[in-house]
């Protein structure tokens, strides 16, 4: 087995991995365990990785470039916004940054993977640190339980994917995506085996993506994890899984289109519907975002039902970029609110946009973006972008299901928005004398993200013509 390694593909991932080690070492040798000590090298590594990625842009497949950029930018927001956990004794900063960056480097490899072994290794590199992150807060039994749920879901999904991969290897005799595509074109292949292999491989990845019926672990994990880790899972980890699924389908399995296309269409429809129905019942902001991220996964994979070429990747990737940014803004703002108020129930968030505009207004903007509703024009435009390939693939029924789900989604996003802009309770319990410095850094991350959403809403072309 010969796996060529090219710097243009592995460079950013390697830089981020080095950053992870530096963050861990700084924390080990620096006498005072402060957050910035490991946070700074992490941010620098992510920025450097981004610069390297942009420098190498011409050598990289466009969709991989876009996905890598989303992963790097998303992780950077997570790292900066995680400052809110500064001085929280139960969170060890060195380990935290090491795990986040290790997972990010796995995510980078995952979207760049062009053979199945790399895919599996990258998948594990993303999953294992993520599991540790979920349960990292010391003495938090809820977090440990969530980490267990996540661990079991992860192991099962990897096992299923491995089974599919081994079957594919058995059928095609190669693990390389191009080789697989060439091998599976052969009509002599035993249809049944190929179908089972393809379905198993996809199912494992869909598990990671949290698509129905493999979504049950998501709400439990997000609710137990530290808020920024939930943000990481819902954006960066989801971006990597989606990128892996789409690349695999379009690059390695285009000739088994008839097998996976109806499957993806049905799963997309079920995922968005179940996710939205689940979100309708939530009265906790993280619970709502967890279920909404299940629903959004449905919108993300819907274009796959019509996807045949690598060009077809642009619609879900553009949608993903906006979804990830909005979700990270929301989670970062919630992390700040949690630090200040200790709860994320709707009753606690009432009137937040009036009492604390720097966190409340970004939450409103993020919710409207996710709902796809003006004034968050970019959310609406990306909804249009994902519906377009579905229509072009002549799946009008799926487009109609998506339309109905836009309505379902609005029902709970609007409820959230209404809570945020409501008149606050008369005796607002929160009166902070002077917010700690770390919260200002996190708030800055939130505001920069919001500024991004506003800029994209004013000028959607900024995203659509720059991400392929």
């Amino acid at each position, binding site marked *: 087995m010969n796996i060529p390694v090219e710097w243009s593909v592995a460079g950013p991932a390697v830089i981020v991995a080095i950053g992870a080690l530096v963050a861990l070492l700084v924390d080990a040798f620096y006498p005072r365990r402060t957050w910035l000590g490991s946070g700074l090298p992490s941010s620098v590594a992510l920025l450097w990785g981004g610069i390297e990625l942009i420098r190498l842009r011409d050598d990289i497949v466009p969709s991989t470039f876009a996905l890598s950029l989303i992963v790097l930018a998303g992780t950077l927001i997570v790292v900066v916004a995680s400052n809110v956990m500064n001085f929280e004794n139960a969170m060890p900063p060195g380990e935290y940054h090491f795990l986040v960056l290790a997972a990010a480097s796995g995510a980078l490899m995952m979207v760049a993977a062009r053979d199945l072994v790399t895919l599996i290794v990258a998948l594990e590199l993303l999953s294992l640190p993520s599991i540790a992150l979920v349960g990292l807060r010391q003495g938090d039994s809820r977090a440990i339980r969530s980490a267990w749920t996540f661990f079991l879901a992860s192991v099962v999904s990897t096992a299923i994917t491995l089974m599919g991969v081994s079957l594919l290897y058995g059928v095609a005799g190669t693990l390389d995506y191009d080789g697989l595509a060439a091998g599976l074109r052969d009509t002599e292949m035993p249809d049944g085996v190929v179908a089972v292999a393809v379905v198993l491989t996809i199912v494992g990845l869909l598990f990671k993506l949290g698509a129905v019926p493999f979504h049950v672990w998501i709400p439990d994990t997000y609710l137990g994890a530290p808020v920024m880790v939930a943000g990481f899972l819902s954006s960066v980890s989801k971006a990597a899984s989606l990128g892996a699924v789409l690349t695999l389908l379009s690059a390695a399995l285009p000739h088994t289109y008839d097998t996976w296309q109806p499957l993806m269409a049905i799963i997309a429809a079920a995922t968005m519907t179940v996710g939205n129905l689940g979100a309708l019942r939530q009265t906790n902001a993280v619970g709502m975002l967890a279920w909404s991220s299940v629903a959004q996964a449905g919108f993300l994979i819907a274009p796959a039902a019509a996807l045949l070429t690598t060009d077809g990747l642009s619609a879900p990737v553009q949608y993903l970029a906006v979804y990830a940014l909005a979700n990270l803004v929301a989670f970062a703002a919630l992390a700040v609110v949690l630090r200040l108020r200790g709860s994320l129930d709707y009753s606690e968030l009432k009137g937040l946009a009036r009492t604390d505009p720097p966190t409340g207004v970004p939450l409103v903007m993020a919710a409207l973006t996710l709902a796809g509703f003006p004034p968050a024009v970019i959310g609406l435009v990306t909804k*249009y972008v994902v*519906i377009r390939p579905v229509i*072009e693939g002549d799946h009008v029924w799926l487009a109609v299901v998506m*339309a109905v789900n*836009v309505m379902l989604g609005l029902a709970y996003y*609007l409820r959230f928005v*209404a809570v945020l802009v409501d008149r606050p309770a008369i005796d607002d319990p929160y009166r902070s004398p002077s917010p700690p410095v770390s919260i200002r850094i996190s708030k800055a991350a939130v505001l920069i993200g919001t500024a991004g959403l506003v800029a994209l809403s004013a000028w959607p072309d900024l995203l659509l013509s720059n991400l392929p």
Partner: protein
Amino acid sequence: MIAAALTIPFVVGLALLFLRTLVSGRTAAWLGAVAMAASLVLFALVWEGKDAISGEVDVEWIDLLGARLHLGATAISWPFLLMTAFIGVLCCVWLIADDTAPALVGLVLIISASSLGVFASLDFLLFFVFFELALIPMWFVIAWWGSSSVEPSAEGDRGGGLKNVPGPDPRLAARSAATRFLLFTVTGSALLLVGIVLVARDNDSLQLTEIRGGPLAAAVLIVLGFAVKTPLVPLHTWLPDAHSKAPTVGSVLLAAVFLKLGTYGLIIASSVLPEGFADVAPYVAGAGVVGIVWSALACYAQDDLKRLIAYSSIGHMGFVALAISTMSPIGIAAAVFGSVAHGVITGLLFFLSGSLKDRFGTASMRAIGRGLYARTPWLAVAFVFAAVASLGLPGLAGFWGELLSLRAAYEVGEVLDKPFAWTAVGFAVLGVALTTAYFVRAIRLLAQGEPVAQDADRDLTVRETVVAVALVASIVVLGLAPGLIVGLYDFSAVTYSGTYTPVAP
């Protein structure tokens, strides 16, 4: 110029929302009235004649999707634009009072500006963005300032809830009405979005001036989307609650402007998707006629004046839908005229019922009592005038919309069967009679009879008089000179783009 006409109310509206603590309600309303008046004047000045696209603005927006910032006024959209800006001015004038919340004025401006944006858009995606933009502000207007007519929060409480701390119960009712309105409309508009994508794929363009034709599925989805907004029976169930629970300006905007987004959309659909629309036109006509009769019957059962007016709107929109479904030039003229006339007449009716609700704390006709002629003479006269205009008295604006609509259906046009169209005319005429009957009932219950004076009896205040006089004058002008609008359409050749292509039956 069009860009300025849209931007001014948007900017002032946003400023009022963010600076709501710095200005008094009275100042805010004055500012709003001035902004809307500026917009109205600009839209009036932009006109370049019926054959041109007036004040066209065409700037790149989203290259990848072919969406452009493409604005302009056409012979079809111009009357809608003027009517919307006019109603916007009057809503702000209405709000010139001490207990007005500045944020409400801001929302009214944003809703008006978004609706103006819908009418001014020549790009389908931009149209859709404006279409959606007005919804959430409207949700807040209904949910926060709306009230339940069953249980008024306090006597003399303006609009039922303009005070800072409204009672809990009416708010819940208003909130569920607002949510139902929003979810219905959003379902419709999501289907509309799918339709737009289908149309854009077939035409490889999003410009309304370039789109010609599309698959039947697109026509069905788009018509469904607009039918919720219009509303056509049986998709109207959100309307009575939303209209009656909303505060006065909310009801006025819903009836005078929001329903027009639906009818204007149907007119667009009939001209950009002629083949597809021809296939669904009989259903549109059927739903319209059922709406005329059904809503007239429903009006008999109403005690709440605002609900009565809300149901009567469904009937008027039925006439408009019938006119559009003929797809003939006279039908389009009837639809535009009917829409604008309904805007000013129902606007006046809702303003006046708002006056009554302000005084008596309820819109229940029995609670308000009889003999308003003696108790509040000018208010009663204005109300009777509006009711008579609404039932279609010749010489007033309501008459021409109905007459032209019946004539369009009688002449059948090219898409409906003759027996079907004539049956529709028969039922519509029955609807006219029923409409007369229920308005006469309302007049009898309120204006006539033995007066029983109440403490709250007060005649029109200055701002109410200004609004009423402006609307009465416009109703009379449109009634005496229908050519102002009808003259925009050459009965032999008119479609959206100005060139008429005959449609195969």
